[in-house]
């Protein structure tokens, strides 16, 4: 049997181009494998070859998805692959989004399978899991040694033409089947059990819709008290509370009364998930304190809460982010804040 041709999509970091400072790297392609592609090539060598690797900077792809997508697609297509491997991206948000978008392109335009790996909370997972076989991974690259064989297992099944029925994030696609009893009977049986207080198993678990109704709009901003919050990690110079650059264990609360403008001397970012150069030069680029203060002085905004709140969104769990926000919200309500501007990077 002819060996399958596989293209691997990775980001600038795994390609060895650089870290966050190279996250704006536009798409490029290379023959053969790069970075983690070596492990895939070795584990698949009897059935497939990694014929090419397509690389794109995480910020580049996420900031220009409409222009990056066709370029990446054509680069992948140029290798005439039978299958594409994306990532694994673990919990890296931009990388997971890019992997997901590439899987969608590959699925819809090339009509070949995509296999990837994502942590369940990666934003790319919910959005794109239906477009590929995404193995559920650990939340960081320490899980590479488990992720690669799991992904390889799925690739092997696809090459062998075997059904792939488990070991990946459910795509949410429906498969029809013939049941022994018809639906009306099954529904009544289930209802009788429920009414009788017996255990029953739903045939269709309800998805969890965690939506919040929009809060009423501010009637008059010129009379309102605004507060500034950020997940982009803006902190006073020196990061006095030592907020972590990833998986923040806390948020900081900082007095802004004596700062009218951020400079390289009084502010910096604690966030490790984006190139910090620009925020360190001028933190107003993440927390717009300078213009908000001017707008308060000019009467456009009623007043500004005395403190800003910051944490680092990079890899921070949803549960923790929720916890910090709940504490912040209570303080804001106590301080009679009317509305919040929350910035993210």
């Amino acid at each position, binding site marked *: 049997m002819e060996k399958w041709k596989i293209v691997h999509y990775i980001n600038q970091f795994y390609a060895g181009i650089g870290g966050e400072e190279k996250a704006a790297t536009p798409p490029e392609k290379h023959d053969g494998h790069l970075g983690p592609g070596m492990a895939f090539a070795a584990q698949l060598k009897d059935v497939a070859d990694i014929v090419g690797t397509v690389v794109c900077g995480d910020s580049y792809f996420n900031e220009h998805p409409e222009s990056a997508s066709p370029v990446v697609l054509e680069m992948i297509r140029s290798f005439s692959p039978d299958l594409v491997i994306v990532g694994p991206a673990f919990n890296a948000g931009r990388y997971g989004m890019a992997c997901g978008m590439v899987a969608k392109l590959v699925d819809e335009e090339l009509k070949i399978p995509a296999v990837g790996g994502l942590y369940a909370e990666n934003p790319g997972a919910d959005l794109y899991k239906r477009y590929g076989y995404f193995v559920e991974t650990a939340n960081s690259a320490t899980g590479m040694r488990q992720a690669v064989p799991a992904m390889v297992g799925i690739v092997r099944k696809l090459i062998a033409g075997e059904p792939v029925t488990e070991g990946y994030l459910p795509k949410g696609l429906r498969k029809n089947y013939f049941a022994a009893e018809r639906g009306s009977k099954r529904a009544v049986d289930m209802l009788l059990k429920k009414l009788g207080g017996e255990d029953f198993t739903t045939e269709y678990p309800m998805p969890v819709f965690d939506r919040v109704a929009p809060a009423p709009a501010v009637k008059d901003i010129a009379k309102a008290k605004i507060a500034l919050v950020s997940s982009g990690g803006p902190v006073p110079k020196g990061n006095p509370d030592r907020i972590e650059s990833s998986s923040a264990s806390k948020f900081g609360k900082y007095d802004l009364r004596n700062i009218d403008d951020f400079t390289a001397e009084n502010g910096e970012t604690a966030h490790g998930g984006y190139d910090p150069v620009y925020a360190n030069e001028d933190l107003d*680029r993440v927390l717009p304190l300078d213009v908000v203060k001017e707008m308060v002085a000019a009467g456009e905004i009623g007043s500004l809460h005395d403190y800003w709140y910051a944490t680092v969104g990079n890899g921070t769990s949803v549960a923790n982010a929720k916890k910090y926000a709940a504490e912040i919200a209570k303080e804001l309500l106590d301080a009679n804040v009317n509305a919040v501007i929350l910035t*993210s990077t």
Partner: protein
Amino acid sequence: MVKEIERHGLPVVHMCTVVPISLTVGANRIVPTVAIPYPLGNPALEPAEEKELRRKLVRQALKALSTEIDDQTVFKTL
């Protein structure tokens, strides 16, 4: 964080660059920003121009906070 603050009854506007993430997680008022490492800035501009850009974005955020909405809404700055 946006949703949790809003759950307490405060209107929140999410100023962020990767809007699809904000939409997926359920922010209601969203203002798209410039870039991931500098959402409210642009180092390619002269400082005065950059500050004006920031002011425009913040004004859009205030507009979002002042607009009644029924559903998730992205307030693009023109």
